[in-house]
């Protein structure tokens, strides 16, 4: 396992370098630099634009900019935001808290899909199954932005039952603020988990070893817990691997609709205004989280599935 870890860590480091470097060049090649929008102001002349470019370090050759950025990024210094005039890591760190809160809560909502999928799978064709499939179909069909907008207009603006924006005050207040965006954001995951788990359960129920267990006279609950669920939930590990990047990268649409001050919206604003330090800081963080999440998922496979462990 140690050899596996070392090999994967080296691969991950190389992958991180390749992806972030590619992103650096892509971002800088996007038409219209950070100063482009400023040209709309008649007060801002070419001299001021040039001063800004020098101040941002954009007057240097791209290769020099890249080497400087790489050296700084290795020390977790992603430079100063052009528009916030503060270190990009500070700005991103400020938004990480709200994003983590929303990400974790929405995943808690999404994980409710696991028991729903189990119930549906074990009750195929019955009312519970029909209801879960109905929820899944509606959940897939309704776009997040529409659901978010409708719920915030109905449940926040018109009725005032839920506040809009980030939570302030006591844990109870916080829960009121986060409930609506977490449910809206988590619904897509809930539906995915429910469908995934339901199919897994149905598939395992048809396996010979389950029939054998039943033929041996084992109690139904034991067959379900030991043989059905343990095997049916294995594929869910793949989905959990995506948890980490999803939690840290934020959700643009949900954050926008709910005025949630998270990383998704920060990234969008930075991309639109070409605030390269923030764009690169967020993308580096997301890339790192994706690589780490995948690594953890691979490791967890080995823990829960002996067949995978033997391949190390």
């Amino acid at each position, binding site marked *: 396992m140690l050899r596996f870890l070392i090999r994967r860590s080296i691969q991950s480091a190389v992958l991180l370098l390749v992806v972030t470097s590619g992103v650096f060049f892509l971002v800088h090649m996007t*038409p219209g*630099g950070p100063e*482009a929008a400023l040209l709309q102001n008649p007060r801002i002349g070419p001299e001021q634009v040039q001063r800004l470019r020098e101040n941002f370090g954009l007057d240097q050759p791209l290769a020099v900019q890249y080497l400087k950025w790489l050296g700084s990024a290795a020390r977790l210094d992603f430079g100063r935001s052009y528009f*916030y005039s503060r270190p990009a890591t500070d700005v991103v760190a400020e938004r990480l808290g709200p994003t983590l809160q929303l990400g974790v809560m929405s995943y808690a909502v999404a994980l409710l899909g696991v028991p729903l999928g189990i119930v549906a799978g074990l009750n195929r064709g019955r009312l519970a199954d029909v209801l879960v499939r109905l929820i899944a179909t509606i959940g897939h069909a309704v776009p997040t932005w529409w659901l978010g907008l409708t719920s*915030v207009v109905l449940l*926040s603006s018109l009725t005032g039952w839920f506040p809009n924006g*980030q939570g302030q005050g006591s844990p109870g207040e916080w829960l009121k603020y986060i409930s609506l965006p977490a449910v809206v954001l988590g619904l897509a995951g809930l539906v995915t988990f429910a469908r995934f788990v339901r199919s897994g359960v149905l598939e395992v129920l048809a396996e010979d070893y389950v029939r054998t267990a039943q033929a041996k006279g084992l109690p139904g609950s034991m067959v379900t817990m030991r043989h059905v669920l343990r095997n049916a939930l294995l594929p869910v590990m793949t989905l959990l691997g995506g948890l980490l990047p999803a939690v840290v990268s934020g959700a643009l649409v949900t954050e926008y609709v709910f005025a949630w001050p998270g990383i998704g919206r920060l990234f969008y604003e930075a991309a639109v205004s070409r605030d390269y330090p923030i764009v690169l800081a967020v993308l580096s963080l997301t890339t790192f989280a994706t690589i780490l999440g995948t690594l953890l998922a691979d490791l967890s496979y080995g823990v829960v599935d002996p067949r995978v462990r033997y391949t190390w």
Partner: protein
Amino acid sequence: MAGDAALIEASLTNLSKTLHPYPDAASYTGTWIDVATLLWGGAEGTGGLLAFDWSTLAFKPAMAKDMPKVSADGKTFTFTLRDDLKWSDGSPVTVDDFQYAYDQASREDNRYVQLDIVQDIATFRAVDKSTIEVTLREAKPRDVALGIANVLGPVPKKVWEGKSWTDTSSNAEILTPSVVLGPFKVQEFKIAERGVFLPVDTYGGGKARVPRVEILANQQPTVAYESLKSGRANWMHPLPAPQYADAKATPDLDVKEWSAANAPYRTLEFNLTRPFLADKRVREALATAVNRADLLDLAEQGLAVPQYSFIPPTNQKWVNSAVEKYDFNLDRSKQLLTDAGYKVSHGQLMGKDGQPVKLQVLYPTSSSPRAKIAAYLQQQYKELGIEIEVKGLDFNAYTDLVQNRREFDISLATYGGGSLDPDLGPKAQLIQNGQQNVTGYFSARVDELFKQASVELDEAKRKQLYDQLQVQVVSDLPSHYLYALKAIDAFSKKVQGVTPRRGDRLDYNDSLLSWSVEQ
């Protein structure tokens, strides 16, 4: 009971990224003006010796006791400071605070956005404890000169001295100023969430009637509007056009709409370096194929007024109405193209190279009205046999392509806002090598007239020069001016004391001092 509820604005954007009284170009935004007007006072956030009165469109004394004495050569302006001015901590505002602001703002490395204007000042000095003398490098027309002499407001020297002017990590005052000049001070300020501001008792213009101003940041437009309707917010600035009709029909809402003298306006910019568009007859054909009345209904829901020159019709101080209007006339458009030597074959206008004429219309996707204008042009120019490729780009990419690379045929531009004086706005679009001259337009006469107008001290003669300029530019047709946009804000009817004047922002008038909100 009037005057004892908070004013709550549902804002569609983030709050300002800085609260610095002298922002750099990257930080100088509409959201900076929003909060700086509250914290630093005066229009555009810089509490000055003078204030621009948007009723009379003239300067009036603010922190100065009277209008300044002007030297015989028109270069030196002597102001006497009022003796009752106080910072938010109750300490007096002194001439040293002005001097300190000038010393800092005039340094290139401090990157003040209006440094070019500050650099028009030759000397700025505190003569005694109540007198400030500002000498310009050269005499300028009255309003331009007053604008330059008044460009600087004070900064609390005792608080800022010894701290960095630009580095947020070593000067907390930049993001959370503890001592301010305006009618409100910061209670809470989270850029992506909300800002809360409380009245300052010592403000020289009087105490605000509202006990608190709250700005809710980053509200999605539908959500912001529903918040306004439900009473969770009581001000929406600006009201997006799609919500206008509903807001007008909602009894609890008060929609303020007005035509500002410095209204933003939309225009078609032609790339004169393209051979097809270099011909004036072609540009005229493209202009007369546009029906302004239809277009402003289609793209702006009627919330605009036709415009015919580079000065909006609402800027009555400088506009010349006697210019060519290029009214809609499709037959004339077709005739002009024929006169220019172009013929239609199988429904397509053929170029002189024998190939069908194709034009590219560029617009920024952040502006949905401009997307509608582009679609309208596509339809209208099809009548002339011209194939139009509509290309929407994100704002920076659009600006880069139009302003830096000049790779476009027709650009859908919006200008306006800011100063009323033509020398400070449209000039940059029209003179050779002007910062915003994207069309490639050059007229020696126009350059000369702008030059004369920028130094002509007689107001009547200056008006004549700008009248001639408008006739010449409109005749040359580097751009086709479409219409000036109306300003629209929506309020709960509980908000009282709001009076639109002739500026494009309501808070320019008195920094919200006269506003009150019923419980």
